[in-house]
């Protein structure tokens, strides 16, 4: 046996074929998608709803100062309850299960951002922040399980829901990886616990969804035509802005777009 390790190369025909498929699908895949926020904006900016919208904006302005204090709060702070209440209000106004799942993804992002802030600047708040993060992850995965167990949920919707959680898993993993590099040794234990919670977002750590017809057997290699399903979105950026309870914590990727 050789003591050399080979560097296998893909077949040229495979590379050409895959490239052609990617180029064929790119225009539709890369086309701008409508997001939940644009959809919501479209809904609330209808002429009939404008007076209500104006009233809502005024109310928001009145509570802006209190909201800012809440936005900067960490789990365990007195003002944190206001932030959670705002998030609950958002959830109760969710138009459908998918929007709800996206909101829960945002909330999990916020809890992680708070955890990062706590570990970095206020270690005494880290255990409570970790608890809050764990609870947010639990609500998120529960919502996924509920959506996927709901009779009549289409395979596309299930896949889209999986994508949201997959994307969140990648974002959280990336944030924790970054934090691990800079966090003090004293924070490593809390960080490990946070990582365990984040791992629950991975497919292997959450309930299996209702099998699709195609899941019952792996397609043969010859018959396999790659489809852009279950995309993962390891995006990074800043927290979504303009949402109740938004926090300007350390940079954290946004939840995936709402399709």
């Amino acid at each position, binding site marked *: *046996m*050789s*003591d*050399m*390790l*080979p*560097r*296998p*190369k*893909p*077949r040229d025909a*495979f*590379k050409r074929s*895959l*490239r052609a*498929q*990617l*180029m064929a*699908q*790119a*225009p539709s*895949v*890369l*086309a*701008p998608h409508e997001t939940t926020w644009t959809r919501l904006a479209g809904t609330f900016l209808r002429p009939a709803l404008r007076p209500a919208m104006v009233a809502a904006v005024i109310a928001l302005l009145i509570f802006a100062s209190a909201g800012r204090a809440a936005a900067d709060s960490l789990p365990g702070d007195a003002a944190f309850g206001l932030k959670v209440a705002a998030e609950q209000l958002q959830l109760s106004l969710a138009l459908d299960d998918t929007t709800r799942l996206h909101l829960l993804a945002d909330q999990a992002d916020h809890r992680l951002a708070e955890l990062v802030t706590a570990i970095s600047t206020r270690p005494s708040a880290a255990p409570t922040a970790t608890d809050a993060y764990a609870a947010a992850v639990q609500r998120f995965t529960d919502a996924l399980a509920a959506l996927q167990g709901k009779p009549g949920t289409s395979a596309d919707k299930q896949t889209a829901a999986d994508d949201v959680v*997959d*994307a969140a*898993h*990648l974002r959280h*993993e*990336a944030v924790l*990886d*970054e934090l*691990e*590099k800079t966090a003090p040794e004293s924070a490593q234990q809390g960080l490990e616990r946070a990582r365990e919670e984040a791992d629950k977002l*991975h*497919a*292997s750590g959450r309930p299996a969804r209702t099998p699709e017809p195609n*899941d019952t057997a*792996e*397609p043969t*290699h010859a018959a*396999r035509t*790659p*489809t*852009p*399903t*279950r*995309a*993962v*979105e*390891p*995006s*990074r*950026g800043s927290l979504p802005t303009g949402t109740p309870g938004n926090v300007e914590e350390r940079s954290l*990727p*946004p939840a*995936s*777009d709402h399709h």
Partner: protein
Amino acid sequence: MVGELPNSRAEDVVSSAEREEDAALARRAGSGEAGAFGVLYDRYVDAVYRYVFYRVRNEAEAEDVTSDVFMRALRAIPKYEPRQAFLAWLYRIARNAVIDRSRRQAARQQVSFEDALAHPNADQVVNPDAGLLAGSDASVVRVAMQQLTPLQQEVLILRYVEGYDTKTISKLVGKRDGTIRGIEFRALSALRALIPSREAL
């Protein structure tokens, strides 16, 4: 045990010029320019394929998963954030694609150096440092590899197939350099224990 590899490409994924070029291409692709994604595909398809090949073993599966990786990347590229090297981002997607696939398989197939050695297109080789596989029966090595953790396999592949140094691998997998050295050490130690006939390991 750890030394310079013949095809060491430590700066490949971290050189700022290449990284900036990748970032620009990714931005253009994310804005809808399919051709830019095509350039990135051409640049990295071989690397992704090699990585996947060693994690799933056979050529057909490697092609299947490689397809999946690039389809996922195409969907996700509008949200790619250049803070992370593009190849590292692709490896992350590949890692999850491999995990998802193994979860769905009834009989999991694993890395096989024996199959890799028999690969019809294997035209380049690297020296796995202190003759990691020298003198060992390929089937023994295969069994041993199957018992390593996914992360250990990943580190060995990036180190001994791709030829990256531990500093680069640390950036690719998002762990500290020292952690990578530890993982590599434990992986090699595990192989040593799992291949009793290898006195030189």
